[in-house]
């Protein structure tokens, strides 16, 4: 049986289009120092460092774990880098938690980031060998056909994506770190923006952000002296699947279904909608809220859009999704998964500030990446398991 693992520190930078004032190392240190402050620790208290970011071609920094070791206080300590495309922020946190759950370390610092302003994600995602053809359509061009397939399969009305785009940006107005803050955001505003990759409109997509997110994970012993209330890990799971194979369901991927079932089993959850108080789920295009509601078992297949339409996932609904504003409001790609995990922890610590869900005691953090082929999830709670 695994040792308990607590989240005793969370640190985030403000997410912005550009952070020209900070180097890559400076950006990470900003988030890491805030996490250490929250945990009441200094660099020297940390046993090991686990970092994660999107593919190297994004900023062209290869082996960032070597370049950043001293910037993250890892001299003479273990440091490792995790790499699972867009889900990396989540899987990085899970690897870090594993170092505590295995009893190897007492205090692990984990950091994920992206400096998208120094990068070209669309280019980096579509470099191909001369043998294959590729359309330079970016993530939006890749996911748009799958969204169309969901709409057709579920019979969802066209405006569901708009509702999510508005809801998440309304939540972002309450989050001091959020990138996109659009006062007065409305359905009309979203619907007046152009179709980039039909059926995806401009305001139904995530922004490109610079930013970093960090957490300090600790054993029970180490958590005892933490100044602020901890969150406890109740379960972690990862799954992956190939991007192309006969019989693949790209709308409702098997990897996500299995990953959710695994993490619920560990946390003893049979009805996620009833037993979780909120969820931070990787929704980079608004339609992925209803799609993931189904994939994660919050409702039956074909029912996700009805849950969204009913307001159940709003901040005042029965199961708020993305109270922080989500990926639709802040997207430093490599960090986006970790932000979900960290925001889930903040909720059950009662430290989410203006976007706090009242009395939240159990929350889901979720990330996905690649062609919806990597999944990482954790459930955190205010009670020690």
């Amino acid at each position: 049986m695994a040792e308990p693992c607590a989240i005793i520190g969370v640190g985030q930078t403000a997410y912005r289009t550009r952070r020209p004032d900070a180097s890559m190392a400076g950006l990470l240190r900003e988030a890491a120092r805030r996490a250490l402050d929250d945990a009441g620790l200094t660099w020297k208290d940390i046993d090991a460092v686990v970092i994660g970011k999107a593919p190297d071609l994004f900023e062209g920094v290869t082996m960032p774990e070597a370049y950043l070791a001293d910037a993250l206080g890892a001299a003479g300590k273990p440091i490792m880098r995790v790499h699972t495309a867009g889900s990396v922020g989540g899987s990085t946190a899970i690897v870090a938690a594993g170092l505590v759950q295995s009893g190897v370390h007492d205090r692990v610092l984990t950091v994920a980031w992206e400096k998208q302003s120094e990068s070209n994600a669309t280019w980096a995602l579509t470099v191909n060998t001369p043998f294959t053809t590729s359309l330079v359509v970016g993530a939006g061009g890749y996911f748009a056909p799958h969204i169309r397939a969901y709409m057709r399969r579920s019979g969802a009305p066209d405006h569901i994506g708009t509702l999510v785009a508005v809801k998440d940006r309304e939540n972002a107005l309450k989050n001091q770190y959020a990138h996109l803050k659009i006062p007065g955001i409305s359905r009309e505003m979203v619907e007046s923006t152009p179709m980039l990759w039909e059926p995806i409109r401009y305001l139904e997509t995530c922004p490109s952000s610079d930013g970093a997110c960090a957490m300090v994970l600790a054993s029970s012993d180490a958590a005892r002296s933490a100044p602020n209330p901890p969150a406890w890990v109740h379960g972690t799971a990862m799954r992956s699947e190939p991007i192309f194979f006969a019989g693949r369901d790209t709308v409702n991927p098997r990897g996500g279904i299995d990953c959710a079932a695994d993490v619920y089993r560990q946390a003893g959850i049979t009805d996620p909608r009833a037993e979780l108080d909120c969820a931070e789920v990787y929704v980079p295009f608004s339609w992925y809220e209803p799609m993931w509601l189904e994939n994660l078992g919050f409702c039956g297949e074909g029912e996700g859009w009805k849950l969204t339409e009913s307001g159940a996932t709003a901040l005042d609904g029965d199961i708020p999704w993305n109270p922080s504003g989500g990926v639709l409001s802040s997207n430093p790609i490599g960090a986006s998964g970790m932000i979900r995990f960290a925001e889930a922890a903040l909720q059950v610590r009662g430290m989410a500030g203006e976007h706090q869900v009242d009395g939240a005691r159990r929350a889901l953090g979720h990330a996905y990446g690649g062609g919806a082929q990597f999944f990482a999830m954790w459930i955190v709670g205010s009670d020690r398991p």
Partner: protein
Amino acid sequence: MRSDVNHVLEFPGGYTRSVGPVIGRFLSELRDGRLVGVRTAGGRVLVPPAEYDPDTGEDVTDEFVPVGPAGTVTTWSWVADPRPTHPLDRPFAWALIRLDGADTALLHVLDVGDHAEPPRFLKTGMRVRAKFRDDRVGGIRDIECFRPEVTSITDPSRLEYRLQGGRALDRFLSGIAEGRIIGHRCDVCGQVIVPMKGLCPRDGVPTSEEVELPHTGTVTTFAVNNLPDPRAPEVPFVSAYVLLDGAGLTMLALVAGLPADQVRMGMRVRAAWRPREEWTKSMSNIKWFEPIDEPDVPFDEIKDYL
């Protein structure tokens, strides 16, 4: 329009000026590549220095204070069309710059690079640094200009590879070079995988049974792209998943030959090949897929390929 001058008045050799002890110290330091100000009795640091406090008329102290070489722009004015006597022959800004450690601002040239219009980064509050001339004489022009502080660098990057496609892909492309589309049938699931990889990703077994596929298929789902692509410079263009007849999975391809808003899920299409003389061992032999005159496939028959 400027009219040509028709009369010049120039003092032979130029006037001499005695600069006095305060400005003299400032200019001497400048010649050595240093910036100093002078402290007033009230404690303020004047740059450029004067022998008196302009606010009170009192003498300044004899304390000289190192300032700069960086400073902050307090205001600026754009010179779009430099005159012959101006220090630069391309557009620049005159700026008031408060050097670090000073309480007053110095007027000087701000060179922001080659811009016809004021660039967006030029603004009050921006950080700048003095650029000294190599050959200094003890004058304000020992500072050639001020330049923005370095906030980013450009890091060129290029990697060179010798790639081999592998046996399965090579065989697939050899087929394409002859106008044939070849896939592999998996022994376990019976599905035809195209382009073949020599293995079935689902069953994890090697595949070798070749199957030649027709050039017709069905659009399962698609996106209408309104952002241009080098391969599809016209927008909107349609990227679609096409299920070739007999294949077990879809392939991503361009669909053309009809207006984007008439593309449908279930639409029947055929590969449009480039002229034979342009064929190479590459998927670009297939230009795109275009509609054929057959009824759409019902959704039920494609729903398991999404």
